[in-house]
């Protein structure tokens, strides 16, 4: 039984059953096909995937796609509502909100991807060390992770940014630190479940070097739950960045990120709703997409979820 408080921080996919691979630990050949099959049956998840691709395109080519530059000012149209010329209206400096929302995708996604990427690398590494080498390394590393888990996410992120000074890199570091523990925990759980498998112990006994064991047997089994968590974390990282930037602690003006645009909109909420609503919707759409895709992936990579019916097929 996992303790209730651990429910929120335990791995979201069950690594023990996530091994879709064969006995040699290679990832199941059908898993890519399974992913495709699941996505087709879940139109929402498919939609989410498309949105993510769209956002990625905006992040990479936003400056080319956007009708105006991020700081181009249209002096005649300050705080103007949505119109044919400015679909999302303009802000207090006369900047086109649509263009800024498009261009802001870059910063928002960059922070998310970089910090989650760093958290993933650090977390997986720590989890591997803890799970594989056990005992002291395990206790020490996991106690450290417990300490990090003891802080509510926003609180820790704000504290870290506070000491490092506000800015996009501080935000990335803060988010990376805050999201490392969950990856560590998932990895460790996967490692523990696989380490005791006969084929792994056999490999150890004949002297296969650790690095090879980890690489060929353990990592493929960790991949599934990690992928699921990555998708979910990418979404939540966007939320965290948005919150930090909204407080003025993240992406700094004039660089746009969706959160930073909400920060700019603070003082004009009553007069110019479009300044806040559109960046906000962009956030919601993107995070929702990551969540939907993550959920769909979890169904593929967590085969324990057989339908009641298949189980009932046995008399």
């Amino acid at each position: 039984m996992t303790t209730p408080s651990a429910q929120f921080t335990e791995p979201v996919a069950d690594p023990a059953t996530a091994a879709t691979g064969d006995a040699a630990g290679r990832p199941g050949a059908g898993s890519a096909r399974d992913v495709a099959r699941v996505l087709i049956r879940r139109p929402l998840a498919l939609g989410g995937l498309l949105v993510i691709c769209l956002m990625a395109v905006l992040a990479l080519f936003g400056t080319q796609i956007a009708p105006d530059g991020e700081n181009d000012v249209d002096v005649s149209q300050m705080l103007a509502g949505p119109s044919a010329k400015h679909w999302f209206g303009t802000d207090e400096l006369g900047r086109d909100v649509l263009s800024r929302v498009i261009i802001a995708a870059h910063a928002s996604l960059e922070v998310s991807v970089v910090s989650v990427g760093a958290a993933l690398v650090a977390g997986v590494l720590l989890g591997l060390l803890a799970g594989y080498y056990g005992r002291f390394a395990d206790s020490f590393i996991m106690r450290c992770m417990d300490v990090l888990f003891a802080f509510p996410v926003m609180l820790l992120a704000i504290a870290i940014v506070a000491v490092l000074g506000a800015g996009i890199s501080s935000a990335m570091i803060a988010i990376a630190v805050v999201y490392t523990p969950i990856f560590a925990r998932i990895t460790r759980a996967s490692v523990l479940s696989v380490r005791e498998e006969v084929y792994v112990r056999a490999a150890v006994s004949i002297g296969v070097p650790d690095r090879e064991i980890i690489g060929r047997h353990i990592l493929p089994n960790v991949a599934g739950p990690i992928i699921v968590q990555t998708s979910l974390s990418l979404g939540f990282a966007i939320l965290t960045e948005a919150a930090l930037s909204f407080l003025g602690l993240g992406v700094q003006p004039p660089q746009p990120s969706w959160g930073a645009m909400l920060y700019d909109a603070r003082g004009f909420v009553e007069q110019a709703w479009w300044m806040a609503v559109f960046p906000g919707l962009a956030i919601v759409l993107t995070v929702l997409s990551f969540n939907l895709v993550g959920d769909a992936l979890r169904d593929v990579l967590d085969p324990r979820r057989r339908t009641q019916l298949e189980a009932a097929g046995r008399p």
Partner: protein
Amino acid sequence: MLRFIRRRVAQSVIVLLGVTLVVFTLIHLVPGDPVRVGLGIRFNEATYLALRHRAGLDKPLVMQYFSYLGHAVTGDLGVSFQTGQPVTQILFQRLPATLSLAVTGLIIGVLIAFPLGVLAAVRHDTWIDSGARVISQLGVSVPDFFIGILLILGLTGTAGSLPPSGYVSLTSDPVEWGRHVLLPALAVGLVAASILTRFIRTAVLEELGRDYVRTADAKGIPAATVLRRHVMRNAFVPVLTVVGVQLASLLGGVIVVEVLFAWPGLGLLTYQAVEERDYPVLQGTVLLIAAIFLVVNLLVDLLYAVIDPRISLR
């Protein structure tokens, strides 16, 4: 069970120590001299030296930590770089506001999530279920302060009669407090509702699938009674613990909402401390909130162990 309690409490103590270490380290990670940075333009040699001494920064590092720990245990968390007020005092001034907001938000969340989650589980695989799941997916994807902004747009100023910010304490004027707390509590509560709906749905669904429910059905007990007597009663404990954990995380999670609505609680205090580079206050809020979070999680785990007869009667 006693062993479980002992182990769990011991774990919490260790983690709490770790937390104090992290909090303590924060002030030392500041590039430059924290007191100098904290004083900023109000820099004055005498004040600087006094504050430095008061914050114990003139002692060697390890001694500092133990001195910090020692003081913290007796309730002394230093003094504010800005006002010179004892941090502990400031914290307890601000705590009630955060508590009233978090609790109200949680109540709203539970009132929405409970019927929705149970309904979704009972009407599993129907449009009600799918609808509930989509709504809760949506709710989890929205920043709480964005909901707050939308609420402000929709319900304040010319559009409505609720105040967009400000605070009146519960004890001095309940009605005004109610008017002021409603929007921030809704912002917080709607997100909490989304998270809770998922858990409640899962918990109820899990119980519904259990063999003893089939036995109760076979015995001829009416469906509604099976739901009430067997399913809900058994799902109660996991649900209660989830609610408890949610409360704990709300205490730390209301920061941005407090800033948006200028709600003078610990969250706003944290933000102000960051803005003003008031490190002792920042340390204080982080420590207090993290400690509360830890304690609530611990209590929830212990409650679970106590209530489940399978564990307590062994």
